[in-house]
């Protein structure tokens, strides 16, 4: 939360910009590969570049999730659960009851998928609660000691504030929707679903006439699912992070505003806990619902 030093060195807008820029590795304008020195350079790298910071934290938190749960799964007992097993079982039971309530079909993959989303997204969101300048400053120290320009060491620690991360997950969900739709309904069944709704008629000519309209509407409907899924998570967390950044600027202004800013930071962090958990839960629930819709073969319109 302490950003006094930082804010003095940079103007407020530079400070915000710095916090919103990823550490991107890709092809530099001069043709060599390396880290981008500023946001414009990162943008010029095009698609074949990696946001090392968010990708790294994402992988680290995913691995953390896996190792925590795997360590419990290895020595899980049906006796009275102790320690970590309690938490893991609470999460598993929560996911299991949600999946059972919303996904009445037989597929053993949905529940693990939902668990992965819930815990992983929760961990990614929870990075927001770590003091906003702590990890970037550490990264800067490391970067400088490795000979980098201190102003070029960007470090975003919350993976879910990177649309690449959230949309990447949403894209996987989208592919699963398509896969299950084709598998459960068949190509013809899926095409019918796309073309014969929401407008249908017994008259063949009218029916043929409304097919393009239906297809456009249903296609939008289908594509809106992953886009909204990814952008909802991104938007919520991005907005939350910006508020943390803005309050952090206030802390650097003077002593009175500083104390006010610190208390605001705490209040916002407490409130943000709700968003962190809620967005992880929403992402999971919507995924289960989309999977359930992909399985739904009987027409209920």
């Amino acid at each position, binding site marked *: 939360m302490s950003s006094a030093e930082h804010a003095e060195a940079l103007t407020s807008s530079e400070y915000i910009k710095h916090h919103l820029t990823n550490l991107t590795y890709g092809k530099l304008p001069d043709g060599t590969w390396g880290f981008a020195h500023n946001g414009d350079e990162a943008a010029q790298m095009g698609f074949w570049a990696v946001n090392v910071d968010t990708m790294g934290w994402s992988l680290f938190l995913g691995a953390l999730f896996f190792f925590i749960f795997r360590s419990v799964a290895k020595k899980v007992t049906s006796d009275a659960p102790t320690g970590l097993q309690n938490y893991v079982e609470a999460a598993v039971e929560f996911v299991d009851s949600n999946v059972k309530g919303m996904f009445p079909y037989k597929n053993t993959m949905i529940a693990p998928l939902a668990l992965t989303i819930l815990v992983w997204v929760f961990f990614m969101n929870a990075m927001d609660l770590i003091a906003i300048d702590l990890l970037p400053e550490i990264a800067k120290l490391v970067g400088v000691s490795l000979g980098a320009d201190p102003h070029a060491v960007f470090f975003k620690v919350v993976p879910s504030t990177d649309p690449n*991360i959230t949309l990447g997950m949403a894209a996987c969900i989208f592919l699963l929707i398509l896969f299950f739709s084709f598998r459960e309904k068949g190509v013809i069944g899926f095409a019918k679903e796309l073309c014969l709704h929401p407008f249908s008629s017994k008259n063949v000519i009218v029916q043929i006439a409304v097919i393009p309209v239906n297809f456009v509407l249903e296609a939008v409907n289908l594509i809106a699912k992953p886009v909204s899924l990814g952008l909802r998570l991104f938007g919520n967390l991005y907005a939350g992070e910006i508020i943390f950044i803005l309050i952090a600027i206030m802390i650097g202004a003077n002593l009175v505003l500083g104390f006010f800013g610190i208390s605001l930071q705490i209040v916002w962090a407490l409130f943000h806990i709700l968003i962190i958990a809620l967005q992880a839960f929403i992402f999971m629930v919507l995924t289960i619902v989309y999977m359930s819709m992909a399985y739904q073969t009987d027409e209920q319109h």
Partner: protein
Amino acid sequence: MNLNATFIGQMVAFVIFIYLTHRFVWPPIVAAMAERTKRIADGLQAADKAEKDLELAKQKVVEQLTSAKKEAATIIDQANKRAIEIVEEAKEKARLEGDRLKVSAQAEIDQATSRAREELRSKVVTLALAGAEKILESSIDQNAHNELVNKLAAEL
């Protein structure tokens, strides 16, 4: 903020973590939880059964106690009866024995009496003969008067 290869990286990572969770995390935990659920259900059932068994056992104990008491009472009754019988028998035996002793004593007495009487008679005969001899101052023909004397003795 640029869309770049991080997107694909995250997709790949997501698929891998789903697979790992599906393969290594979910099944053992869910299995353990299901087993615990079953064990708890079994335990509750067993507790119910044990309670019922206890109830039955208590009933059985009461029944057995009652029957044992009854039996004991019967046995005591029988024993009392038997004791009375034994006493009666003993009394009867004693009475019979007494009678028998009395009879044999009587017989002995009778025997002794008749023996004494016999002895007395023979002595009387001798005395009578001696007396008669003295009175008559003459000897009586033993052979001639023997019959008379015996008749006399028999009348005594």
